């Protein structure tokens, strides 16, 4: 069957199971937009290309399926660089299709031309400029294969206009759909290892059964590998506590007795300190990020390390493991469970009662805490989050931007289900929340989706609420409006002698309620504690359009605990609500 390149591209996306494309058309991608009219694929027209990229990410985070964004050449391609980098840092499977100027114009500084493949090379798992119409089906299949296997990540496919333009005879191709064998043959250098080495797994099981102070250090790889069940089995079989990193919140239920919550710079005391004092860290799909380790040379000094990751380059990148295991987290953990059982399972674990007592002592002595506001005082952001948490369904999907509100959400929410927490960890992209929430809601229309955002973040990508209103995507946004770039303010207060440089934003310029209404949303403003619950209940009852609540919160509030930058995790500061210091 003869087909045009643009039709072949859309047909290929259909065969990949794509149900939605987030995008915005333009000159170079026009011929691909024409066949979209005849396709069952839903297209969501964004207001800025960055929004398309983050929506694709939000969709992928919430569903586990690859998100797809499609934009034109030049400025559209550069606008989507940030989401690509974000997805690369957090290993999010997305496929981005960009238009490119016609082949003959490439290299001539043509209108809306940029070197998209060159610019995005270091922020994608892979990218490809397709030069012949006949290569389009293979390029699309390869892109989805690379994005979703091994360590997931973003893949960009750049399509020159001439190979999809029906006016160009060279855009015609004989339709085919590549076989698995053809994809494998086309990628001779790509063979991700998924099965762990049996001897290493046995060795890991032996270390587990010998350790008296073990901690499981679970990272985002657990979620990517759909390994939450396997992780729970391992933790319960061995009775070992689990910390869940920022990218792994929800991978192990917060209400589980073995859950320690989030470690790291703003992790809770028990999670941070148990890792510091462990004799064994079982790192599963985590990468020893600087925000987790603090000063690397002082991180978990007595711990032996078992490190499981599908990316061999993560093993030994920061900390040399005693037992490195390359493989898919789910497959390796299942093997590890078997190996621990072979050694005697629960019965073969040493007496860890002293360790458990130590941990529960830390939990009792240093719980998360903040000072309750006096009547008439500004709202505490933590209070708003507790109310939101306690008055939304248990499986609500929560998205956040980057900064104080992100840390408070991660700390104060109780994530009891995987894939309910969507945020930008590695890149720390302000403005992630609103578009990511739109993508998550499109992927999981059955779930309630709340974006918890900061006022600084909200201003970066709020225009996507117009998209949400137009497309009837009823997300809910809670702005924790403290009128500041709060995290920067916190650092200036603590480390720059309270010299506040360029961090003030104003609480009511813009007027968030009016802005929300102008974008077709329901807008509300909340200034006192007694208004919090009614506003949340009202928002929860609205299901035909987006809702935005402007919560006016205390700008002096800081995120604690905190490990000051450059210091050891032993120097954790628990904050004023706990008295002076942590130790």
């Amino acid at each position, binding site marked *: 069957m003869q087909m045009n390149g643009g039709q072949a591209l859309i047909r290929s996306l259909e065969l990949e199971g794509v149900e939605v494309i987030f995008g915005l058309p333009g000159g170079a991608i026009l011929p691909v937009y024409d066949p979209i009219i005849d396709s069952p694929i839903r297209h969501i027209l964004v207001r800025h290309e960055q929004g398309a990229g983050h929506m694709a990410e939000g969709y992928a985070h919430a569903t586990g399926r690859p998100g797809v964004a499609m934009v034109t050449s030049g400025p559209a391609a550069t606008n989507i660089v940030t989401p690509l980098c974000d997805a690369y840092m957090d290993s999010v499977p997305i496929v981005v299709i960009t238009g490119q100027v016609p082949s003959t114009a490439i290299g001539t500084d043509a209108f809306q031309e940029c070197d998209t493949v060159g610019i995005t*090379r270091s922020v994608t798992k892979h990218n490809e400029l397709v030069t012949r119409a006949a290569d389009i089906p293979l390029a699309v299949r390869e892109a989805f294969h690379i994005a979703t296997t091994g360590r997931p990540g973003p893949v960009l496919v750049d399509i020159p206009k001439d190979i999809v333009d029906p006016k160009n005879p060279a855009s015609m191709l004989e339709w085919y759909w590549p076989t698995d064998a053809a994809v494998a043959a086309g990628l001779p250098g790509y063979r991700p290892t998924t099965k762990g080495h049996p001897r290493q797994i046995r060795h890991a099981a032996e270390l587990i059964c010998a350790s008296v102070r073990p901690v499981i250090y679970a990272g985002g790889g657990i979620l990517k590998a759909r390994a939450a069940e396997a992780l729970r089995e391992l933790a319960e079989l061995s009775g070992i506590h689990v910390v869940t990193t920022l990218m792994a919140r929800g991978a192990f239920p917060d209400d589980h007795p073995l859950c320690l919550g989030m470690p790291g710079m703003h992790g809770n005391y028990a999670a941070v300190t148990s890792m510091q004092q462990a004799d064994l860290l079982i790192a599963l799909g985590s990468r020893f990020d600087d925000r987790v380790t603090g000063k690397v040379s002082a991180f978990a000094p007595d711990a032996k390390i078992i490190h499981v990751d599908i990316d061999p*380059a993560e093993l030994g990148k920061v900390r040399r493991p005693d037992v490195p295991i390359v493989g898919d987290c789910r497959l390796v953990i299942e093997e590890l469970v078997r190996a621990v059982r072979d050694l005697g399972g629960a019965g073969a674990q040493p007496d860890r009662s002293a360790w458990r007592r130590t941990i529960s002592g830390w939990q009792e002595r240093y719980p998360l805490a903040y000072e309750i506001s006096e009547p008439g005082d500004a709202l505490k952001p933590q209070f708003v989050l507790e109310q939101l948490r306690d008055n939304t369904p248990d499986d609500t999907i929560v998205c956040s931007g980057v900064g104080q509100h992100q840390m408070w959400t991660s700390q104060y929410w109780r994530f009891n289900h995987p894939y309910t927490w969507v945020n930008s960890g590695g890149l720390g992209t302000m403005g992630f929340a609103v578009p990511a929430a739109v993508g998550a809601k499109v992927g999981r229309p059955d779930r309630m989706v709340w974006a918890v955002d900061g006022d600084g973040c909200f201003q970066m990508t709020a225009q996507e609420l117009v998209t949400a209103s137009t497309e009837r995507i009823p997300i809910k946004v809670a702005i924790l409006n403290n009128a500041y770039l709060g995290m920067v303010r916190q650092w200036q207060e603590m480390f720059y002698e309270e010299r506040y440089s360029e961090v003030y934003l104003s609480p009511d310029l813009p007027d968030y309620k009016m802005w929300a209404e102008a974008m077709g949303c329901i807008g509300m403003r909340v200034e006192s504690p007694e208004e919090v619950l009614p506003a949340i209940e009202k928002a929860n009852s609205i299901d035909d359009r987006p809702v935005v609540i402007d919560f006016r919160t205390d700008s002096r509030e800081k995120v604690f605990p905190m490990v000051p930058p450059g210091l050891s995790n032993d120097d954790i500061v628990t904050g004023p609500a706990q008295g002076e210091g942590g130790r």
Partner: protein
Amino acid sequence: MTSPSTSPSSSATTSATNSVKAAGDVRHHTLVVLVENKTGVLARVAGLFARRGYNIFSLAVAPTEDERFSRITIVVDVESSPLEQIVKQLFKLIHVVKISELDPRESVERELVIATVNATPLARGQVIELVQVFEGKILAVGHDVLTVSLDGAPAKVDDFEELLRPFGIVELQRTGRVALAKVTTSATRPLVAQVS
């Protein structure tokens, strides 16, 4: 199209400090990287080194006997970053098919130098003698310059360059190292196998 291609053949020698520095230094390692012969593959490899802060001492690339693949010989300066991390990061590139580190004792390495040196009638005899001792070639003869070439083991090329220097080097170009494992032994350390 948008970036350098490996085809037909390109090569370059770069040096972090100066070109005189001996290429046989212990902190230098030779990696032989088999890549798919695709547009932009050299930019991917070079970009990775730049992005991760690794130093390339020299780099040579050309298609192999199988035109689908090119072989890149990279001499890396590993004082700043461990070789293992470089290899693992390189292997993540989709177009990289195979990576081997060559042990100099169990591989053959060659480099080519072409130099134009001052050779006034008084010195010409000495330059020609030097070229003959090293089994080099004289490529072009001018009134008071000679263009000479030598291919050989990198250390020999270093020595040759050093001895030419007093005559006055007008221009000099080295290719960077190319290398293969010796056929009789299996000198190739299977780094890729360790990785995966």
